[in-house]
C-alpha cells in the first residue's frame, strides 16, 4: 500500500515539475549565458536537451527516475550544479528531518499531557485558557510566532537568537562540541516549528478524552470499582491514543509546511532554507522535485510505522475488524 502511494507521489511530483514552464536545458544554457558565454541559440538548447535525455517522452523519463530512486536511492542530477542531488542534499536533509522530528516530539510531549489534563478539568478557567491557546494555534501560524519571538528578542536582547549553530561552529566539522551547540540552539526552532501542531493536537487530545470519558465502558468500569489513575490510563487514555497516533503523519506534514518559512525567518540556513534557495534562487527543478519527494517519503514511512503501532494497541485493527 505504502509502495503504491510512493509510486503515485513520484508521478505527481515528477509531473508537476514537468508542467513548470521552461525545462532544465533552457535554464542551464541561460545560466551559462549569464556567466559570460556567447548568446545562446535554439541549437544549443536542443543539444543540451539530448545530452540530458530530455527529448525522451515524459513517461520514460519518469520511469527511469523512479527506477533509480527505488533501486539505487539515486535522486538524479541537479540541473544547474551538475552534481548528483544526493550530494547537494546530504546532511542538510538529515538536519531538516532531525529538526522536524524534534519539533514533532516536543509538540506531542506538550500536547498529550496538557490535553489530557485539560479534559479532566472541563470548562474550568485553566481549561478555557488552554482552549483559547489551541485556537490561536490556527490563527497564529508558526511564522508569525517566529516573527514575534524575533521581534521580542531583538528588542530585549539585541540578538535575534537565530541560526542552528553559533558563529564559531557554523562551518566547523561535526564534533561533540558542535552537536552540543546544535542541541542548545535547536530547541527554540523546534518549539516554533511544533507550535501549530502542538496547539491543534492539544485540542484533539482534549476532545478525544472528553469523548471517551462519556462512553459507557468507562461508566461500566467505574461500576466495577475502578477509579483514579488506573481507570484513567487503562480505559479512556488508551482508547484516545489510537487517533492521536493516527494523526502523527498529518502533523509531520504540517511541520514540513512550516519548515521552509520558519527556516527563512530564523535563518536556519542548514535546514528548510535549502528548499527555498533551490527554488527561488537557482530555479533547480530537479532539486526541488527531489526535496518534495523526500519529504513525502518521510511522511509515508511515518504513516507506515503508525499503522503498525495502531495494530499493536488496537486488537480490532490487528484482527482485521475495522
Amino acid at each position, binding site marked *: 500500500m505504502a509502495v503504491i502511494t510512493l509510486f503515485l507521489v513520484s508521478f505527481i511530483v515528477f509531473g508537476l515539475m514537468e508542467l513548470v514552464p521552461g525545462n532544465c536545458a533552457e535554464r542551464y544554457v541561460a545560466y551559462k549565458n549569464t556567466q559570460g558565454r556567447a548568446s545562446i541559440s535554439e541549437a544549443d538548447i536542443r543539444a543540451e536537451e539530448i545530452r540530458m535525455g530530455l527529448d525522451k517522452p515524459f513517461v520514460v523519463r519518469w520511469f527511469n527516475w523512479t527506477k533509480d530512486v527505488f533501486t539505487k536511492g539515486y535522486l538524479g542530477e541537479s540541473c544547474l550544479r551538475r552534481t548528483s542531488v544526493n550530494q547537494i542534499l546530504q546532511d542538510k536533509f538529515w538536519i531538516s528531518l532531525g529538526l522536524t522530528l524534534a519539533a514533532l516530539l516536543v509538540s506531542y510531549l506538550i500536547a498529550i499531557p496538557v490535553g489530557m489534563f485539560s479534559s479532566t478539568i472541563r470548562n474550568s478557567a485553566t481549561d478555557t485558557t488552554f482552549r483559547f491557546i489551541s485556537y490561536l494555534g490556527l490563527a497564529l501560524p508558526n511564522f508569525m510566532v517566529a516573527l514575534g519571538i524575533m521581534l521580542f528578542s531583538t528588542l530585549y536582547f539585541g540578538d535575534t537568537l537565530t541560526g542552528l549553530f553559533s558563529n564559531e561552529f557554523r562551518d566547523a566539522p561535526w564534533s561533540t562540541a558542535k552537536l552540543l551547540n546544535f542541541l542548545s540552539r535547536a530547541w527554540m526552532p523546534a518549539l516554533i516549528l511544533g507550535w501549530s501542531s502542538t496547539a491543534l493536537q492539544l485540542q484533539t487530545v482534549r*476532545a478525544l478524552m472528553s469523548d471517551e470519558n462519556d462512553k459507557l465502558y468507562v461508566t461500566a468500569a467505574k461500576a466495577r470499582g475502578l477509579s483514579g489513575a488506573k481507570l484513567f490510563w487503562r480505559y479512556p487514555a488508551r482508547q484516545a491514543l489510537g487517533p492521536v497516533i493516527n494523526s502523527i503523519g498529518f502533523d509531520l506534514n504540517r511541520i514540513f509546511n512550516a519548515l521552509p518559512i520558519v527556516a527563512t525567518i530564523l535563518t536556519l540556513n542548514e535546514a528548510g532554507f535549502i528548499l527555498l534557495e533551490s527554488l527561488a534562487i537557482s530555479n533547480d527543478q530537479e532539486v526541488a522535485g527531489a526535496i518534495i519527494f523526500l519529504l513525502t517519503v518521510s511522511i509515508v514511512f511515518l504513516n507506515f510505522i503508525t499503522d503498525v503501532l495502531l495494530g499493536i494497541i488496537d486488537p480490532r485493527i490487528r484482527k482485521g475488524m475495522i
Partner: protein
Amino acid sequence: MASVTAPATKASTNKESYYTAGQAQLIWSRFKRNRAAMISAILLLFFVIVGIFAPFISPYAPTIAGKDPDYLNGAPQILRFWDENGFSIVPFTYTVERTRSAATNLRWVETINKEERRYLRFFVKGWDYYLIDFFIDLPGRNYDVRWRALKMDRHLFGMDKGFIHFFGTDKDGKDLFSRTVHAVGISLAIGTVGVILSFVLALIIGGIAGYFGGWIDGVIQIITDAVRVVPTIPLYMAIAAFLPDDWSAEARFFFISIVLGLLGWPTLARRIRTHLLAERTQDYVLAAKLAGASPRRIISRHLLPSFTSYIIVDLVITFPYTVLAETSLSFIGLGLKDPVNSIGVLLKNATNVDVMLNYQWQFIPVPIFIILVLAFVFVGDGLRDAADPYAQGKK
C-alpha cells in the same frame, strides 16, 4: 394528541416548529445559542463588508498613487476633539510639515504644526475607483476578462486638507489603513476562489467515489491519499518559484487561488464521499431508484440536498486554511507581491530589523489578521457543533 390542553398549547406550537424545522433552520437555531460563534459571525460579516467596500472605506489609494509624500514611515495619527487651542465638535488632527535645512544636517525632519488643524469630513471626493471590479488576468496573451461598473470618487471619510493615517504609513508614505482594508478584501477573495475551486473538484471527485463506491471508490481513495501526503507549501513553493517574474500582480493572484484550490480538495472530497456513502444506502434513495429516477436525479435532487448544510460547514472550516496558505506564500515572496495588498505582503514589508526596532505600527495588520482567522475558526466550530447535535455538550 387528544388530551393536549390549554397550558401546553404555547409550548407545543414551539415544539411543533422545532419538529418540522428543516436542517438549515435547526443548524441556525442551535448556532444562535453559541455566543462566541455569533460574535465571530458578526465580526466576519463586518470584515466581508469592509473587504467588498474597501475602495469606499479607504481614504487614499493603497498604491503609490495615494502616498503621502510628507509622512514616510509615519506613526499612527489620532483624531482629537480638543487641545490647548480649544474644543471642536468636528474631530481634527495637526498638519505635519517636513523640512530639511543645514540646521538639521540636511536630514528630513518632521514637525507638527499645532496651529494648522485638519478637520475630518465625511463622504469626501477622493481618488476614482470602481465599486464593482471583476478582473481575471490570465498570463501571456490577451485573455484578460475585466468587468467593472459604478465608477465613483466618494469616500467614507477624509480630511479637509492634507492626510489622516490611522495606522500610520509605510516607507513610501502609503496609508497603512487603506492598505489593510484592501488586504482584507484581497485575502478573502483569494480564499473564496480557492475554496470554490477545491469545492468543485471535491464535489466531482468525492461525488463519483461516494455514489458509485466499489472499485471506482477504491482507486480514487488511493489517489486522494497520495495527493494528501504531499506537503502542500513546499510543493506550492516549487511551482510558484518558476512563475515568470513578468507576470502581473493580478495574474499571480489568479494563479495562486487556482493552485490553492487544486491542492485543497482531498480533505473535502473525502468528507463528501463519506456523506454520500452513508446516505446512499438509506431507504429513501432505494425508493427513488425503484420509482425509476436516474443517478443524476438521485444525486442532485435527493443526495446533495440531504447534506448541503454539512458541506457549507465544511467549506467554512476550510476557509481559514486557504487564507493562511496565501499569507504564508506571500510572506516568503512566492505569492503576491507589492503593489498588491494582501496581509502576507504587508507582513513581508514589516519584516526587517529597521521596522521592528523603529516602526512597530507596521505590524498592525497582524492582530487584524489573527482576529479574522479566529473569527473564521469560531464560526466554523460553531457551525460544526450546530450541524452535529451529537457533538453537543462534549466540548
